[in-house]
Every structure is written in structure tokens, then in C-alpha cells.
């Protein structure tokens, strides 16, 4: 497998043994950024000099016997919502012009301590308030397999950086699906950990009740490595459950009601492969899943409006026009409706807990449609025209509301050659167990690995 499409788990032993140098890997990533970033707009800030210095330090430390772990010397990217000391955090917005972070975000400090090399900060939908990455002060990030399409968002630049071989993983944020949506659209693994499990200090907020930080990467093993570092824990020995010991619930109502035909076919083919391998699949029901949209809207609008109120009043022209309008909409949400949404959040959380009783996880599609053509505002699913934003959020946002960990794994390609994703949802306090299920499932669906790294 070419180095640019390797996983972190594959690279680690090579870096540790000295057969591959961090500086060599980092320079190769920077070359790919130089070549492709002018078109794809994956990065807002490239940290070339800093990355080379970090890589040289990593190589020296490893050569002297100070190996920090599986991220040591690995080039990764960061969504430009995460503070890096001495570097601007733009949030893809002119509202942040002139900003320089004084300290690392907690997660960035942990990654730095683990020896990761930061090649740059990635493009996103402005302030993470959108699903297509089209509204960015730095231009739209473009899908690496088809630049006429969106890579999804809001962590779109992060997904492009990994899928185009510019970094081996990226750290994103997920408020309604912003890690899982671009991961699914670009053929990557993406993890939204359980709510509160990974610190958000030093990360520009969208909605304090729904924000999560997590990785976009090329394998479930890589997601586990990054998850350990992000939450500040010691890597655990891996125990992958046997396929025949896994039982998953499929919440068909609402989640499978309206899907693109190619996505539905890829998902059903994945279900068939899992059944053949011995995984037990059974139907489950989440009664208020269909209320997730109204709950989400009232929570995210009210909280985002609170954060942006001052700059909306003083510098409205600094926002992308449609992002500004959505934030302005939040200023009209009544307190009583925000409270209703928070009460609904408790209901949905209990219902997802109930659906998981006796199961290892839930299984459903991640994204109802393949990566959309940029500029698309609505998509036809069955006999219904659905706004693109709703169609992209519909399957992921329920688990931001409920706080359960959720993992997306590539589950095939649509007839037009675009990736589709399968989403696995775990028990609230058991992200590590979800990752073990994910590893087992990944070995069934992709026994030889899966790569869409575009060249």
C-alpha cells in the first residue's frame, strides 16, 4: 500500500523502527498540500516550517529511544476551530480576522504531547454552521474524487486532507454530524465520541449542549488510537469481539425511510455481509427520532445566537450571508421553546438507551445521500423534495442530541462511484466498546482495508 494511503496503525511500527522517518512523511504531505490545495481548499493555514521542525524533533526523540506512542511523528491536520498556540483560529470567518490563539486547546496539547505533527489547519463551513463547507471565507472545500461536489461538512477540509493524502488523520468537531457526514461523503472512518468525553476547551463552540471533538481517519484502529489521545487516556489492549457474538439493532422507522437508492443499496449489502459473517441484526424502534430535527434546531440556534450575539450586532457584514441569516434566526427563538427542546433531549436520550438494551450497538446509514453537487439546495428522495441541509443532518443529529457515541465506516460506493457510510451507535459510557465492534465489523466489510485516497 502506498505510504500516502497507509493507516496510522500501519505507520507506527515503521516510524518506531526508523524504516520510515517522520520528516519524510511530513514533507510528502506538504508536497501533496502544495499540489492539490489551490484547487481543493482543504487548508486555511499550512504550518510547513512548524511541521518540519516537529517532525525532526520526533525523529531525534525516537532515534534516542524516547518513543511516545502510535501518534509519534505522524502528520495530522486540525479543523480550524481548534486553538494552536501562536496560530490564528479562523473558524473560516472574517469575524476572526486578526485572532491568534494564546494557548493550545486541551485536545491539541494532548496530541502535541503524543508527538503528533501538525501540518495545518483545515477549512470548514463558517463557524461549523453548515453541512456542505460551501460557506467559508476561504472558499469552498471541494470533494477530492469530484471537485464539482461538496465533501460534506462542517469538517469538510479535514475530510479532504485525509482522503487526498495530505494528512494521515484530522481532528474535527461534530454538533449535528460534522465529523460523520464528511467522513461518509469522502470514504473515511469518523468518530463522534460520547458527549463530554473529550474536552472542548480551546475549541470555538457552535452549541455547548451538542458539540463533540473527534477524529476523521482511515481505519477504526486509527480512530481508537486518536480517541485514546484525545481523551487523555492510556491506550488499551485491543479485544475484538467475534462476529457471531455481535448483535446490532437497526432502527428502520425514520432512519431508513428516505434514502438515496445507491446509499440504500450499499447499506443493505453491508447488512447482508454482516449477517453472513454471523452478526445478528434485529429491528429496534426510537419513538421520538422524528422529533430530533425540531429539538436540534431550537438548541443549536439558541446557543449559537448567544455566542454570536455581539458580533452579529457589531460586525454582521463579516459573516457569510447565509450563515449570518441562520444565526439571526436564532435570536428569535423563545426561551420556552429552548426549554421544550432540552426536555425533549432527555426523552430521546432515554429512548436510545432503551433501544440499546441487550445490544452491542445500533446500525444505520450515516448520510442519506452521496456527496452533493455544490450549489444544490434540495434533493429529491422518493417523491419528496428535501432541503439539502436537512437531508444531510437527518441521520446523525439524533445522536448529538442523545449524546451516544457514533462511528461511521465506509460501506461501499454508489453507482456514480461516491462513498456511502454505515453508522454504528454505542452505549453512552462505552465508546471503547463501540470501537471494538467497529473493528470487528470493518474486518468483515473491508477484509483487505478500504482506501479512497485520491491522487
Amino acid at each position, binding site marked *: 500500500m502506498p505510504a500516502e494511503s497507509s493507516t496510522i496503525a500501519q505507520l507506527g511500527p515503521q516510524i518506531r523502527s526508523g524504516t520510515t522517518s517522520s520528516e519524510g512523511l511530513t514533507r510528502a504531505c506538504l508536497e501533496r498540500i502544495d499540489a492539490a490545495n489551490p484547487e481543493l481548499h482543504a487548508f486555511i493555514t499550512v504550518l510547513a516550517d512548524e511541521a518540519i521542525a516537529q517532525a525532526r524533533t520526533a525523529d531525534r526523540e525516537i532515534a534516542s529511544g524516547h518513543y511516545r506512542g502510535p501518534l509519534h511523528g505522524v502528520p495530522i491536520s486540525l479543523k480550524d476551530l481548534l486553538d494552536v498556540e501562536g496560530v490564528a483560529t479562523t473558524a473560516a470567518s472574517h469575524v476572526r480576522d486578526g485572532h491568534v490563539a494564546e494557548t493550545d486547546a486541551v485536545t491539541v496539547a494532548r496530541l502535541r504531547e503524543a508527538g503528533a505533527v501538525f501540518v495545518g489547519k483545515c477549512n470548514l463551513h463558517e463557524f461549523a454552521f453548515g453541512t456542505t463547507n460551501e460557506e467559508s471565507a476561504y472558499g469552498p472545500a471541494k470533494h477530492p474524487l469530484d471537485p464539482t461536489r461538496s465533501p460534506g461538512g462542517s469538517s469538510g477540509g479535514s475530510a479532504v486532507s485525509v482522503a487526498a493524502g495530505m494528512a494521515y488523520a484530522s481532528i474535527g468537531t461534530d454538533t449535528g454530524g460534522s465529523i460523520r457526514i464528511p467522513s461518509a461523503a469522502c470514504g473515511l472512518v469518523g468518530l463522534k465520541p460520547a458527549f463530554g468525553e473529550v474536552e472542548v476547551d480551546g475549541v470555538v463552540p457552535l452549541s455547548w449542549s451538542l458539540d463533540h471533538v473527534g477524529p476523521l481517519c482511515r481505519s477504526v484502529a486509527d480512530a481508537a488510537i486518536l480517541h485514546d489521545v484525545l481523551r487523555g487516556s492510556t491506550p488499551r489492549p485491543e479485544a475484538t469481539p467475534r462476529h457471531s457474538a455481535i448483535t446490532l439493532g437497526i432502527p428502520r422507522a425514520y432512519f431508513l425511510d428516505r434514502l438515496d437508492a445507491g446509499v440504500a443499496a450499499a447499506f443493505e449489502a453491508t447488512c447482508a455481509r454482516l449477517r453472513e459473517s454471523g452478526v445478528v441484526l434485529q429491528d429496534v424502534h426510537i419513538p421520538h427520532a422524528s422529533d430530533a430535527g425540531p*429539538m436540534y434546531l*431550537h438548541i443549536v440556534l439558541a446557543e449559537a445566537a448567544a455566542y454570536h450575539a455581539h458580533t452579529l450586532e457589531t460586525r454582521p457584514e463579516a459573516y457569510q450571508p447565509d450563515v449570518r441569516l441562520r444565526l439571526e434566526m436564532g435570536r428569535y*427563538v423563545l426561551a420556552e421553546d429552548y426549554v*421544550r427542546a432540552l426536555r425533549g433531549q432527555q426523552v430521546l436520550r432515554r429512548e436510545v438507551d432503551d433501544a440499546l438494551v441487550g445490544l452491542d450497538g445500533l446500525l444505520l446509514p450515516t448520510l442519506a445521500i452521496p456527496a452533493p453537487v455544490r450549489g444544490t439546495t434540495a434533493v429529491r428522495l422518493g417523491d419528496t423534495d428535501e432541503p439539502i441541509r436537512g437531508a444531510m443532518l437527518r441521520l446523525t443529529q439524533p445522536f448529538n442530541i442523545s449524546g451516544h457515541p457514533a462511528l461511521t465506516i465506509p460501506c461501499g460506493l454508489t453507482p456514480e462511484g461516491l462513498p456511502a457510510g454505515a453508522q454504528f451507535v454505542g452505549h453512552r459510557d462505552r465508546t471503547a466498546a463501540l470501537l471494538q465492534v467497529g473493528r470487528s465489523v470493518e474486518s468483515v466489510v473491508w477484509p483487505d482495508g478500504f482506501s479512497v485516497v485520491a491522487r
Partner: protein
Amino acid sequence: MRTYNRPVTLAAWLEAALADADARNLPALRPLLDNLARSTAALRAAEWNSDASGNRPTPPKADAR
């Protein structure tokens, strides 16, 4: 003393919000507020909501206007 007879219904809220958007010269906000009103109607219709009378609230009309 002034008396206020007009209840703060969803329709009244939307009417006020639209007027405010117009006054702020933000006509593009109108369709977003219409969508928000539909979403709010759905939220208020959910059966987890409670009511001071002890009865379940009467769901607002789906079309708040």
C-alpha cells in the same frame, strides 16, 4: 392602566418576528422564520410537553400562520 388581551401564540410570535425582520431590512430572513415557526409548532406538539392545567397541551396548528 393598559390591558393586554392578545395571547402570545405562535402566530403572534411569527407576525412580530417577520415585522422585526422587515424593520431591520432583512427580508431574506422571512423564509427562515417561516421554517422556524413550522419547527416550533412540531416541537410544541410533542407529548412530552406538560401544561399547568394538568392536561396535555393542545398542539398548535402545523401551519402557524
